[in-house]
């Protein structure tokens, strides 16, 4: 585990309609809000919206790949709609805890204007896959 002081990662969250389609096929979330921009739900929301648990899963992948560590826990609060095909950036403030082999993260998902869409926190364990 790095002993560097707290630092911040900035990562891009994928948000294409194809990403949402693949997620729906894998998880069965067929709500029109996410994949049918012409649906009443999406029109009311101002456009098709990324599923919350898609954001959660994609953030999980980004954090694990960026740190080479394995997630143990991730909590996300969805504060505002994250729209499909919009540019989304993930700011992850990383605090290593070398003695325990852990990374503690506070994260924010921001739109291109800096609007806060999601906040959360995560705990990752350094090293390769943990559970056998």
């Amino acid at each position, binding site marked *: 585990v790095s002993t560097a002081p707290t630092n911040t990662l900035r990562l891009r969250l*994928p948000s294409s309609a194809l990403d949402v389609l693949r997620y729906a096929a*894998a998880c069965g979330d067929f709500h029109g809000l996410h994949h049918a921009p012409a649906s009443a*739900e999406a029109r009311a929301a101002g456009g098709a919206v990324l599923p919350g648990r898609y954001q959660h899963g994609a953030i*999980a*992948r980004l954090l694990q790949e960026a740190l080479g560590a394995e*997630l143990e*826990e991730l*909590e*996300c609060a969805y504060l505002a709609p994250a729209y499909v095909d919009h540019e989304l950036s993930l700011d992850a403030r990383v605090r290593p805890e070398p003695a325990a082999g852990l990374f503690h993260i506070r994260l924010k998902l921001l739109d291109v204007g800096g609007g806060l869409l999601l906040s959360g926190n995560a705990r990752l364990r350094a090293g390769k896959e943990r559970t056998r």
Partner: protein
Amino acid sequence: LSLSTLAQALSARLGAVTSTWSYELTRPGVRAYARAMGYRARHYYWLEDALALGFTDLPAPFGYLGAPVYLPGFIDERFSEPGDPADLSFAGYAVLDAGTMHSVLRTPCAGESLHLRSSLERAELVQTAGGPGLRVERALRFEDAHGQLALFQRRRTVYR
């Protein structure tokens, strides 16, 4: 049902298990989820690579629960998961996903089935940007064939 009526009905059931169901992890399911999330690591797709890492089969990526067994009339057609008991109908309300906490106690692998027990943790009337709403928090416990807790999720949903 009004939001306040629903809040009262839910509050009377806090801590109670409101639904149970089976979720199946399969190799195509693991591959589909890993691809949807953008994973490039081969052990989510190629059995020999997973075995070389010590897994018994393709491991579930973080956040993957497997596929809930589909049963017409029981599984929610929009979300593909079991709904709430029939007397807790949220029909007519918009459903907003407000939050997810996911915790891994043991990584399950393809070939396993997980048993869900979902319980109500909190129900409260709230004021949202779009007007009054009802925020519900559920705890989802996913146990393996030995009754051991493998995955735990807490979900917050707002109805308005």
